[in-house]
């Protein structure tokens, strides 16, 4: 399966010899571990007593390759992050592939390799999987679904629900919003200007582990993916019936993201990310948590950007750099470039 022009055919999904070759020659080879090697219908996992976190996500992205990653690294990191922000330690992943007939095998290999690499770096095993091939035109090149299982300590049980969020808590972000979305727009060649922007696609667990080790007062975490930071802030205010006050001057926005947003008339708060977490932390521990985050590659620009307040419950408000105030509304439709 190494020819440069070799393409996936319907035979690679028919359960026969081609499919077997694809599975053993690619998935088993790169994902290699004691569970997947068994090729049982279900992976049998040994678990400690306690709680499991379980999540699933499907990945459809155009283009499949972009500066800073590809659909494979995205599919692994995205699910790892969903586990990590729930306070869980990611342990096992599944991977399901829906491949369009005619898809280039070299590209598939690159994608599977980067999935294997991300999983290995994270110390997580891809233990089970599935492959389907559909007729040309019935899917856009490649869709990937990953599910993840993580283990969760008792003391972190409330992080996902945010039930301990209270007025005065600080809101923290680990870096600039908007890098992923802007990198994708660039990769789609929608605009004729060049930047050095890369997707922020990354596994956040190493940083989150440091955060949780530094403080027992992390009250809520959520990764800000589609819909951006604005969506997570609205979710927190709605879920916890809390007011949110963000200070625009404290938000670390990458200069290239900022410049592109200015040109297009976009708001970085609504642009997608794949490596950004919003955390709500007790005011007494917030600085400590930020210091811990800065020790990780994914948290170098971590900053406190605002706080939870008793005012305007259910609403997120932005104090603008010019000193005005406005509501951070929920995203309705995708942002479109300004006309003039």
């Amino acid at each position, binding site marked *: 399966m190494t020819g440069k022009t070799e393409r996936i055919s319907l035979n690679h999904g028919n359960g026969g010899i081609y499919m077997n070759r694809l599975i053993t020659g690619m998935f088993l080879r790169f994902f290699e571990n004691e569970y997947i090697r068994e090729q049982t219908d279900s992976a049998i996992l040994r678990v400690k007593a306690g709680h499991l976190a379980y999540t699933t996500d499907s990945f459809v992205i155009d283009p499949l390759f972009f500066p800073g990653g590809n659909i494979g690294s995205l599919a692994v990191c995205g699910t790892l992050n969903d586990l990590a922000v729930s306070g869980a330690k990611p342990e096992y992943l599944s991977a399901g592939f829906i491949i369009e007939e005619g898809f280039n095998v070299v590209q598939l290999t690159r994608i599977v390799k980067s999935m294997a690499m991300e999983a290995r770096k994270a110390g997580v095993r891809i233990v089970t999987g599935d492959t389907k091939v559909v007729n040309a035109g019935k899917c856009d090149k490649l869709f990937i679904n990953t599910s993840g299982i993580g283990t969760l300590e008792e003391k972190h049980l409330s992080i996902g629900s945010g039930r301990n969020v209270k007025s005065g808590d600080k809101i923290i972000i680990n870096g600039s919003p908007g890098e992923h979305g802007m990198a994708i727009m660039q990769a789609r060649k929608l605009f004729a200007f060049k930047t050095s922007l890369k997707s922020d696609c990354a596994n956040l667990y190493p940083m989150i582990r440091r955060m949780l080790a530094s403080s027992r007062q992390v009250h809520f975490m959520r990764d800000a993916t589609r819909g951006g930071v604005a969506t997570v802030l609205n979710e927190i205010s709605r879920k916890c019936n809390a007011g949110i006050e963000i200070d625009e001057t404290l938000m670390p926005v990458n*200069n290239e993201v900022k410049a592109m947003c200015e040109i297009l008339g976009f708001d970085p708060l609504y642009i997608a990310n794949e490596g950004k977490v919003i955390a709500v932390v007790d005011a007494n521990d917030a600085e400590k948590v930020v210091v811990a985050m800065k020790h990780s590659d994914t948290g170098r620009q971590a900053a406190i950007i605002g706080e939870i307040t008793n005012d305007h419950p259910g609403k997120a408000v932005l104090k*603008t*750099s*010019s*000193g*005005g105030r406005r509501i951070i509304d929920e995203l309705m439709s995708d942002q*479109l470039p300004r*006309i003039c």
Partner: protein
Amino acid sequence: MNPDRLRYIDEFRDSALVRHLSHQIGNISRKHIHLMEVCGGHTMAIHKNGLTDFLPDNINLLSGPGCPVCVSSQRFIDHAIVLGRLPGVILATYGDLIRVPGSRSSLEKEKAKGADIRIVYSVLDVLEIAKQNHKNQVVFIGIGFETTAPASAAAIVRAQAEGLKNFYLLSSHKVMPPALESLAAGDTRIDGFIAPGHVSAITGYRIYQKLSEVYKRGVVISGFEPADILQSVLMLVKQIELNHYHVENEYTRVVRPEGNPRALAIMNEVFITVDAEWRGLGVVPRSGLAIGEKYAAFDASLRFMVNVPESLPSKGCICGEILTGKSRPSDCRLFSSVCNPFNPVGACMVSSEGACSVFYKFRS
């Protein structure tokens, strides 16, 4: 300078400067005045930055007709919809327009039903679409003022030079001065205009002379940052307090007195001015841009002779009054409950720079 700051942007958002301007306005403003921010970009900037909090109560800001999507007439949308239904026709347009309701449908609904409608970021992309689909007829739905009209004109000139035979423009391009004069002559009280920055970058500022000299209104061309807008308000307040009306330019870093002669030349090469219908203002004499005889082969309204059914006015929608500064979005009984960004009834709720959409987004 701090390397994390963006030049020409961050310094115009400086909170100390904004507060200073706000105090100056408060100190000299005595009369109860109504200022119209003409451009949708200004409406957006004012509410996005919460600038009304920096103005005294005696200064009332009105949103104007400078949002290209908002002023597109229902008939124009209906016309585009009919073209989109013709076999072999690909429509291309700028984003927001596809959501604007026509009389019976919208381009978005037509797209869902199978019409080939593409959203583009530049009219030059449409030439590429035409080249790649040479068996199709590709129609660009051209909206916008002096800001976007030169690009449409340039596309036509290029299409001519390259011998493209399947590219057409359905023009709803408009020019600003006649609309502003019609507003000044109308019954809305407007003491001064915060004049559009990017239109003026093309036209220069002689186009506003009649507003100050004949209609005795203050005119200040303004940039789009918080300090720009407050500085412009301050300049207008001074003019109005002193009853001394003239055209001033706050946006000196972009706007030159003579504008952009090359852009003006290409517009004049391709377009002629005609009477045009504006949502809200009705037909404004000599305010529209139609393709002139020399480039008539690119005119979609001539190439496709279609029957556009009689337009149906939308019931209860007061977009027209909002675009002329007579009413505020919250005065409309449809606002928020019936008409909202999920279900826009009028164009002002569709465009991200439409007054209703901006009010809904930042003030709800």
